[in-house]
């Protein structure tokens, strides 16, 4: 079953994932130009971009657990998913700078160092930036596989920071961002609990 599915998946070009990743942006633009965002579009634009970035980041994190549990491999698409997530993060930050803050750089700077939710968000953005600029074959070759993998473990603190950024920005404990945090913790826990595909034995050399 998984094998068959993997065969189908191999035929999907990576650009198709990019195309699918552009759908939320298309819908947002549609809503902006048709007035579908209500009386206060700035918040909606900013929040929707941020949420979409997080959802794609979670999709990126789900690739490994899916492989380990079901042996379905989306590995070929993982880089695209991560870069799509980062693209939405860039748009999210850009909308904050331009629409929310109106380019008040001084206030933005003092806010970023003072406000926990902005500290979380900006740190996550910096981590994701480091991952995005090294998401190419050249970087893997230059850094070596082990070094590159070590660097890309930064996605774990980054996704937790993003989740905290959302929770901290609200006045109350809202169920949705808490559920998202739960999902993230679950995806991270699977990596620890299931270190390799289910049903596969540990390699001989590592036994004893």
């Amino acid at each position, binding site marked *: 079953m998984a094998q068959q599915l993997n065969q189908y998946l191999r035929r999907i070009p990576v650009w198709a994932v990019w195309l699918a990743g552009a759908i939320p942006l298309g819908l947002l633009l549609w809503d902006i130009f048709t007035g579908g965002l209500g009386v*206060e579009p700035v918040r909606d634009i900013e929040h929707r971009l941020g949420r979409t970035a997080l959802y794609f980041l979670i999709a990126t994190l789900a690739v490994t657990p899916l492989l380990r549990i079901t042996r379905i491999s989306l590995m070929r698409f993982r880089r695209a998913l991560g870069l799509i997530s980062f693209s939405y993060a860039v748009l999210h930050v850009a909308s904050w700078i331009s629409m929310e803050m109106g380019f008040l750089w001084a206030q933005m700077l003092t806010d970023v160092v003072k406000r926990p939710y902005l500290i979380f968000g900006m740190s996550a953005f910096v981590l994701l930036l480091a991952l995005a600029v090294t998401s190419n074959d050249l970087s893997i070759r230059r850094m070596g596989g082990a070094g590159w993998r070590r660097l890309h473990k930064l996605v774990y603190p980054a996704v937790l920071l993003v989740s905290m950024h959302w929770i901290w920005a609200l006045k109350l404990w809202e169920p949705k961002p808490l559920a998202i945090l739960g999902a993230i913790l679950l995806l991270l826990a699977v990596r620890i609990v299931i270190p390799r595909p289910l049903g596969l034995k540990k390699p001989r050399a590592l036994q004893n």
Partner: protein
Amino acid sequence: MKLNWSDVTPKADFLNRRSFMTAGAALGASLIGGPSLALSGKASALSTDEKPNSLEEITNYNNFYEFGTGKEDPARNAGSLTTDPWSVEIGGLVDRPGSYSVADLAPENALEERIYRLRCVEAWSMVIPWIGVPLASVLQKVGVQPGAKFVAFETLVRPEEMPGQKRAILDWPYREGLRIDEAMHPLAILATGLYSDPLPNQNGAPIRLVVPWKYGFKSIKSVVRITLTDRRPACTWQDLQPSEYGFYANVNPEVDHPRWSQASERRIGAGLFGGRQETLMFNGYADQVASLYAGMDLAKNY
């Protein structure tokens, strides 16, 4: 005999007296679509000359957690609230405690139009043309006793009509309070209307407090209880997070909310790239109200 909202002349009738002959038909039509009652208030020198936000903006971007925590939730969910009959229990240190109707507290001939800036603690703002009466006139009507130092307010609790109350996200009922001199200040009003209509439910129908120099959460909606007291009353947001929401909650660009700056604000309806504007001390009402806080450290009494 007490007059209720249902006794007020329908808007269609009084707007155009010359169409009196067709008033019967208009009345019939207005009853099918729900009676629409017009309100008007005398212009006030206390109004700002800034351009008010549109009715659509004012009624579709609300914090009213009794109807949900999203900004659009109140417009979506508040239709189910019964606002007539309505009574406000006034008690505590007053000469004439009792149950008062909206018309008792804000009779039509006393209504004033007050176009006020509104500044939310979340750093957005609007300009709203309220219709209402000075809170002081209501307090004088019930007779404030000399020992009264504070006024406490409570919002309705009716989970079957206020779906947000089905979860204990806040400690219902929503409570707020003012010091007596703040309450007696001419800027503080009880509003019953918006533009030329009775207050829409999502804006706090049928009667709400408006204290324009304080963050919006002080201006408690859908008031059912007013209590004069000698001690500082409990306030919902302050109880929940005292480090973030003070008792005074005066708009102050120099004292930040721990999680966001209060130095500037975004005007709702300014457009995608409308930018931010500077927040003014006491939301621009400093000339009128700063003396209330003379000698107080506003960083401590925030």
